[in-house]
């Protein structure tokens, strides 16, 4: 176990800057997930931590040691690749034991560790096979086994589940969680799948364009996205977003303009919003409750009944498509009018720069 500190890490390929200054602290035994759209620099960042990619500028500490110029093998890390990267000409046994063999570990110790890893991952019966004789899920296990025997302080995973089918992915996700509890090691996990991030992470780091958008516990990111990007990225189905214009002020409330949203108002921080400001309104599909007198009105386009819940696609007065997720047996028909209410705590507003207004407010007030 070790903690990591990234201080102003930059990475450029030629003149193209792909990682634009990342500061991050990762604690002992934490399960941290880097999440972001494809191409945002997640892998690059992970590979810099692994030592496979040079750090253009900034400092990387693993434990107490400055690791910028340290060889991967000296960093106390192990990595699981998206492709698994199992050596095709070696048996599973040799694949798992390769690192120990290179480290000149005595044969008995090697054997003991390989069998111990195989036991943890329930793959004792696979040890004599070659990677080409394994299924995707089994290869995944071997790749993890190869990481385990190194007894690393930090595990690095680069989209390890993306080559598996959906059902297997859910299983492996749970196993990874269990493994984390069992080993207690620090784990850094890269994915573009926000569901994976939400389910696995102690701490999520949302990246976009080589910059950290927000860091926090999954539930914080869900409830309090720092900006439009995080709001749109975290949560499934996606948050409904619509442009609105701040309207009349009455007391400490501000009305929000926008067709179909006329009756919404919002408690605001007087220093920041004024009538006429262009804002973006965000409401999660799960926050909308059917209510005949509710302020969010629209026309139903499509009703998807999943049994336990129903997804309603509806159109606001201004033609924008929104989603609502309601009870499975909600009496809603296609083509009809529908109205929803929403708790004030579930309304989010983002200013012209995409920053969450409430976050700004809370930054001023020191509370949410």
């Amino acid at each position, binding site marked *: 176990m070790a903690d990591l500190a990234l201080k102003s890490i930059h990475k450029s390929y030629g003149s193209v800057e792909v990682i634009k200054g990342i500061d991050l602290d990762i604690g002992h035994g934490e399960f941290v997930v880097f999440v972001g759209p494809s191409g945002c620099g997640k892998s690059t960042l992970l590979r810099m931590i692994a030592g*496979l990619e040079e750090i253009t500028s900034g400092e990387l500490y693993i434990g107490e040691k400055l690791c910028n110029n340290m060889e991967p093998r000296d960093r106390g890390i192990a*990595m699981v690749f998206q492709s698994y990267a199992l050596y095709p000409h070696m048996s599973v046994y040799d694949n798992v034991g390769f690192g120990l063999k*290179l480290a000149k570990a005595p044969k008995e110790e090697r054997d003991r560790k390989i069998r111990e890893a195989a036991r943890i991952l329930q793959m004792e019966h696979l040890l004599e096979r070659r990677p080409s004789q394994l299924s995707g899920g089994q290869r995944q296990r071997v790749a993890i086994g190869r990481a385990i025997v190194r007894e690393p302080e930090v595990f690095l995973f680069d989209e390890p589940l993306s080559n598996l089918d959906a059902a297997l992915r859910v299983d492996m996700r749970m196993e990874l969680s269990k493994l984390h509890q069992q080993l207690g090691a620090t784990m850094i996990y890269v994915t573009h799948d926000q569901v994976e991030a939400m389910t696995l992470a102690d701490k999520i780091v949302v990246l976009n364009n080589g910059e950290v958008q927000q860091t926090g516990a999954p539930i914080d990111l869900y409830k309090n996205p720092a900006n439009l990007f995080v709001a749109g990225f975290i949560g499934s189905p996606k948050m409904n977003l619509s442009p609105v214009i701040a309207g009349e002020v009455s007391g400490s409330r501000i009305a929000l303009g926008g067709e179909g949203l006329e009756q919404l108002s919002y408690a605001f921080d007087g220093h920041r919003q004024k009538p006429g400001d262009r804002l973006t309104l965000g409401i999660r599909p799960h926050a909308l409750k059917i209510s005949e007198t509710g302020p969010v009105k629209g026309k139903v386009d499509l009703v998807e009944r999943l049994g336990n819940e129903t997804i309603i696609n509806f159109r606001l007065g201004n033609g924008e498509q929104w989603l609502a997720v309601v009870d499975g047996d909600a009496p809603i028909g296609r083509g009809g009018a529908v109205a929803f209410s929403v708790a004030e705590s579930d309304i989010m507003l983002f200013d012209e720069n995409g920053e969450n207004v409430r976050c700004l407010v809370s930054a001023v007030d020191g509370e949410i």
Partner: protein
Amino acid sequence: MMAMSSSATASNAPLTKRQRTSPYPTWFFLPAAIIYGVLFLFPTFSSIYFSLTRWTLFDSTFIGLDNFAQFFREPFLIQGVINTIIFALVTCTLKVVFGLGLAVLLTSDIRMRALLRSIVFFPVLVSAVGVGIAFTAMMHPTRGIINIALDLVGISGPGWLTNPALAIYSVALVEVWRGVGLATVIFIAGIMSIPQDYYEAARIDGASAWERFCYITLPLSRPATVTVIILSFIHGLRNFELVWAMTRGGPGFASDVLASVIYKQYQAGFYGLSTAGNVVLFVLIALMAIPLYIYLNRREGHQ
């Protein structure tokens, strides 16, 4: 997927792997078959026939195995066979060693990689005779540039082509110089087809550059190695142009290889005899190359 689409178009009968390998109609292979028949099968079988005749190009009389009997009585045949095998082994080994070394160098992150690759490949484009003549001049015992250069550093160079014990090795070295480019190109292709992930995984597992070469590059470029070994071994066994251009089998018969022995009989007008020699050479190559090929490919079932 493939099974589904082809069984939809063909029949409902269970299809074996063999039956569904080709998506093309059978007559597609006719042009290739005709070319192969005219240029390979016909000459091969007619030469087997002519090797059993006394042949003057215009008419031939059947004499059974007499040509073969006479060929095996040829006084310098044993020397020729030994030289042929020495030549094949030396050139094959050195091409593998240097080819692999150069390929590793030329797939690493060095400057002017593309230019260096062309330079290494360039000798392959020059004709063997041209190369032979140039090196004969350079290997002249007193006026050749090689021995002049050796003189400058105080070494008196040997008679590269005039020393009977050395001649065949000198020719072999020139063949290595000429052919290593092709071996390098094959190795480069083999090394570049190894996914980068394996090297990265090995680095994380703690492998040094040398260990990565031994445990990743070497085993995973095995298909390329097999290709280079087979190609250069067969090429070495058949070698003629270079020996002929450089030594004509001399001094004396010291650097004669099978092909040059055969050519001398042909020059002397013994066409049937030289054809019999060619059949022997063909059988010899087959006897050595096929088991070698099987041996080298024996463990390739699993990727």
